Each structure stands twice: as C-alpha cells, then as structure tokens.
C-alpha cells in the first residue's frame, strides 16, 4: 500500500503545496488503491480516471507557476452520486437514472473543482438516499471495510467505505436523517451534517427538501473542517441557503485539538442512548463522557421529551416530501422510459415501476397516503407540529448546554441482509440522528472506539445549535485528539481481495 493513501487530507495538501508530492501522484495512488480494493468494497459506482488526472495535472501546473492554491488543492475526493456532475453519470443509486449525464454541475461540485480538489468518482448509496445500509442501491451493496460481510451504513455507505478503505481521504455525503453520520459511525470515520441551509442544495437530487443537507466526510475532524469551508456558504441558486458567513470551523478544529474544553457544557440527552442500544455502543459512549469530562467539560443531563416521537414524525414528513419530489421522474424529459407506444400515463407508471426499487416505492406510497385528504391532519399536519416541539426541545437543551451528545447509531455495523426486508427495523438505525434534521441544527459523528463484543467502530454524535458548527468542531477535535493519543486512529483491517 502506498504511504500517500494513509495521509490525512491536510498532510497531503501540505506536501502537494510544498512540491514534495505532485497532485497527479496523489490521484494515481488513490486510483491504484481503488483498482486494488474496490472490487471487494464496491464504494464507487463510477471512477473518472481521466478527469481526475487532468484536474490534478492542472493543480500541479498552478503550483509550478507559483500560483496561490486552495488549502485542499490536489487532494482526492469521493463524491456521493446524488450531486450532479456534468462530466460523469449521476444515478442516485437508481435504475431510473442509469447512465444519466446531467447538463450542469451542482454548486458543491463547482466549489470542489474551484478549490482544485480531485474528484475521483461517484460513490454508491441507497437509492435516492433512502436507507441506512446501502443495500437499497440498484447497483448492489457497498461492503464495510471493517468486515466485508457487513453494511457500511447508509445512505452514504459508499462515501464512508471509500474513506475507511483508504480509497480517498475526503468524501461528500448528504444527510436527511443520518445518512452522513450513521455511515461515519459504523466505518470509524468522521461525518458532519451542517446546519440546514449551510451547504447549497443546488444540483443535489432531492430526497426530502426540508431535511436534506450535504456535508463533509473525512478520517479526521480537521480534514472535515477544511472541506466544510470549501463547500459551505451562501448560494443564490438555492433559495434555502443561509445568507451568512460559514462558521470558522477550521480555526475551531485547530483550537479543539489542543484538548482543553474547560468551561464548556456538554448535554447528555436522556432520551437518546437507553433501551435498544448495543452494550458495546453504550459502554463506548460512557467512556466518551468520561473523556470529555477529563478534558474539562461539564457534563449535564438534558431532557428532550419529544425526541421519542422524532422517528414517527420523520417517517411521515420524509415520505410526504419524497412522494412529491420523485414525481419528477416521469419518463418524459430525462431518465428511463419503458413501453414506447402506450399512453403517457401508462408509460409513466410502467417506467416508475421498472426504475424504482422497493424502498423508494414504499416511501412514495406512504407519502401519498399521509398527504391524502382525510389523513392529512392526523398524519402530516400532526407530524409538523411534533417537529415544532422537537425544535423547542433543542432550544431548551441548548439553553443548558453548549453541545449535546449521544451515541450516533444504536448498533455497530450489522450483517448485510439482516434488516433489508424489515423496513421498520432499518428505520430504527436513525433514531438518534433524526431529531437534528427535523430541527435543522448541526450534528457530527466522530469515532469513539470499538465495541468490546464485536470489535467494530462506534461513533459519538455531537449536536450544536443552528450555525453553531464552530463549537461542535472544537469538541469533536478535542475528543479525537485525546482518544487518538490514548488508542490511536481507528484503522480498518487490510481489505481481503
């Protein structure tokens, strides 16, 4: 294995800027790694070898010419296949978009390119970001590098697995109910869901528009912060984009790494972490609390009584938005079309039947039900009121604590196939991550260690108020520095090929 692929993004960028390593060499080392292990891991749906090398060569030229380059110039990245790319297919893990070449780049894609980041390819995901295991991809599951018989989380399992397998030091995900944080937890990587509106949704194919949020994924908190500052910030092309400066997360991560959290109040959410959590997850969380206390933080218990209704509200609001958003896949303007010659309505129904997988269909039907007249008030309307109460719970908790913490996911990575036919069991994976999406606040997952019973990674979730990312990164970086000093980085075993 080339040493280059073991470096953090920050280290790699420094070496590239110092001309010790070329961006092309960095890209090639990761492309070689993908060729070596991705047959087993299946993190990528598409690898753009030529475009990646061309982009890297441009960075090398700029550096050779003495031009100023960005803090991540030449660093390779894996992009979730839900962001449009004009030079690569964008499938969202769905057959209905197989081979689709978008005519434009997402704002996130544009910003990555502008920063000279090398986009290696597009990563696998649950179809249209609906799932917690990446088993709902129409192109086959991604495997967890820690144990190839297990799931890498979802929906962004491809992005998280690419990091854990050292196929890329940076990745982009999207988080609607936990799709960045839960994969990060079960692969031993870092994943951040920014404040809603913090990263542009332009060119992010919609799942549930009021919940979707793109964000950075990496192996270290500092790398996530560096990437966050590249992709974050106001975008006039997204009407829900927040018109405010990006929080200074890089500075916060550097400050946090010094390890002092004195004066900071960390709230433990009473309702997240009790029943249904695997013993090793619970134990790792408790150790994490002791660590935070050792770093000087004051641990306070907070109660968020409506969080227990979060999952119910989420699985009414999300399918409702999904049923509306996915109506655009109508076989008329782009994407799959089957049964030429029939009426438009038949073509639509047959195409959607052929192009969507079971989880997408379930959620479309559920959403259609929740929005039906007669049920609207009892389901969708009531769920929106619960959403208000969850936001109020957060507000009350943030009055008592600077950040809130919980285990990110109730279990470690489970075996592929275990929950794929039991939708409700699958939904429970996002129990602890859903409330932040409903309230639009920020959340991240950082590795907290390995579970004693199975030796698999566990994640600590840190939540902060809207636009409170700086304090979240500070706590994440302090926690990471302390844990790594004691136990070392979590490194997945070498992938068996």
């Amino acid at each position: 294995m080339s040493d280059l692929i073991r470096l953090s993004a920050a280290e790699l960028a420094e070496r590239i800027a110092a001309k010790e390593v070329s961006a092309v060499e960095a890209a090639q080392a990761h492309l070689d790694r993908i060729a070596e292990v991705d047959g087993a891991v299946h993190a990528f749906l598409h690898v753009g070898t030529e475009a990646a090398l061309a982009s890297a060569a441009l960075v090398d030229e700029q550096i050779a010419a003495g031009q100023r380059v960005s803090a991540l110039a030449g660093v390779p990245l894996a992009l979730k296949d839900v962001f449009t790319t004009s030079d690569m297919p964008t499938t969202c893990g769905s057959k209905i978009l197989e081979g689709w070449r978008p005519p434009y780049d997402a704002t996130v894609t544009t910003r990555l390119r502008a920063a000279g980041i090398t986009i290696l390819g597009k990563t696998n995901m649950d179809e249209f970001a609906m799932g917690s295991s990446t088993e709902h991809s129409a192109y086959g599951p991604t495997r967890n590098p820690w144990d190839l018989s297990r799931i890498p989380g979802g929906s962004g399992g491809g992005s998280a697995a690419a990091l854990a397998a050292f196929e890329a030091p940076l990745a982009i995900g999207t988080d609607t109910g936990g799709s960045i944080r839960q994969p990060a937890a079960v692969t031993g990587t870092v994943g951040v869901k920014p404040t809603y509106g913090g990263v542009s949704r332009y060119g992010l194919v919609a799942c549930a528009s009021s919940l979707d949020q793109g964000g950075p994924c990496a192996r270290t908190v500092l790398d996530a912060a560096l990437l966050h500052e590249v992709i974050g910030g106001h975008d006039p092309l997204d009407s829900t984009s927040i018109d405010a400066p990006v929080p200074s997360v890089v500075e916060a991560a550097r400050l946090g790494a010094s390890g002092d959290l004195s004066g900071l109040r960390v709230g433990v959410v009473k309702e997240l972490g009790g029943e249904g959590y695997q013993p090793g997850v619970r134990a790792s969380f408790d150790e994490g609390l002791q660590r935070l206390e050792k770093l000087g933080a004051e641990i306070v218990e907070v109660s968020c009584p409506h969080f227990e209704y979060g999952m119910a509200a989420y699985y009414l609001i999300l399918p409702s938005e999904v049923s509306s958003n996915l109506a655009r896949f109508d076989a008329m303007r782009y994407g799959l079309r089957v049964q030429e010659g029939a009426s438009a309505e038949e073509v639509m129904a047959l195409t959607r039947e052929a192009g969507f997988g079971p989880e997408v269909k379930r959620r479309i039907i559920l959403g259609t039900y929740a929005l039906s007249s007669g049920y609207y008030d009892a389901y969708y309307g009531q769920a929106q009121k619960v959403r208000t109460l969850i936001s109020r719970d957060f507000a009350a908790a943030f009055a008592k604590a600077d950040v809130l913490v919980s285990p990110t996911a109730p279990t470690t990575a489970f075996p592929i196939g275990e929950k794929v036919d039991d939708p409700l069991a699958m939904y429970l994976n996002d129990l602890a991550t859903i409330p932040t999406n409903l309230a639009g606040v920020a959340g991240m997952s950082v590795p907290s260690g390995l579970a004693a019973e199975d030796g698999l990674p566990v994640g600590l979730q840190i939540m902060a108020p809207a636009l409170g990312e700086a304090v979240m990164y500070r706590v994440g970086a302090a926690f990471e520095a302390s844990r790594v000093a004691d136990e070392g980085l979590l490194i997945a075993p070498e992938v068996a090929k």
Partner: protein
Amino acid sequence: MSPDSGAISRDEVAHLARLARLAVTDDELDTFAGQLDVILGSVARVGEVAAEDIPPTSHAVPLENVFRPDELRPGLTQEQALAGAPAAEDGRFRVPRILGEEQ
C-alpha cells in the same frame, strides 16, 4: 377510515400506487400492504402528542421569500436540455400520447 383503526388494506395500497403512477405487481401489493401496515402502526404514534395549539413547522429555518433582479442570464441550450431526453424531435421533447382514444 380513521387513522386509529390502524390497518391499511391491499386495495388501499393499490389505489395509492395508482395515484402515485406506480404499476406495482400483485406480489408487491402483498408485501407492501403488510409492511406499510406495520410502518403506519408505528408512525401513528405522533397522534399521542398533545399538540393542538402548536404551530406546524414545514421548514426548520425561518426564511423569507428570496428575490433576485429580473435580468437575462445564460441557461441551458436547447441541445443541452434535450440531451438526456428519452426521445426528442424537432428540438422538442417527444412524449407518448397524452389523451385517450375516446377523448
């Protein structure tokens, strides 16, 4: 049927699938009806929350309408817009028959 009665029937699922333009198979109807029944039974819990006087939230971040100057800006060319079309003709999307024979 009130949501309290819980069950969603196979016929209801078939009706919803038609509304959503999904030509689901009989096998799928059998599977989905059972699964949706379980899911609905679980999400119906939102009804336990006393929230009569609580305003609904559709968006977590309060936003006002966003306007921009009404100026001409470059967009997709006709060729780009049609590039992903399943069928195109004379610079337009070619779509299947929309009206029924009898209409």
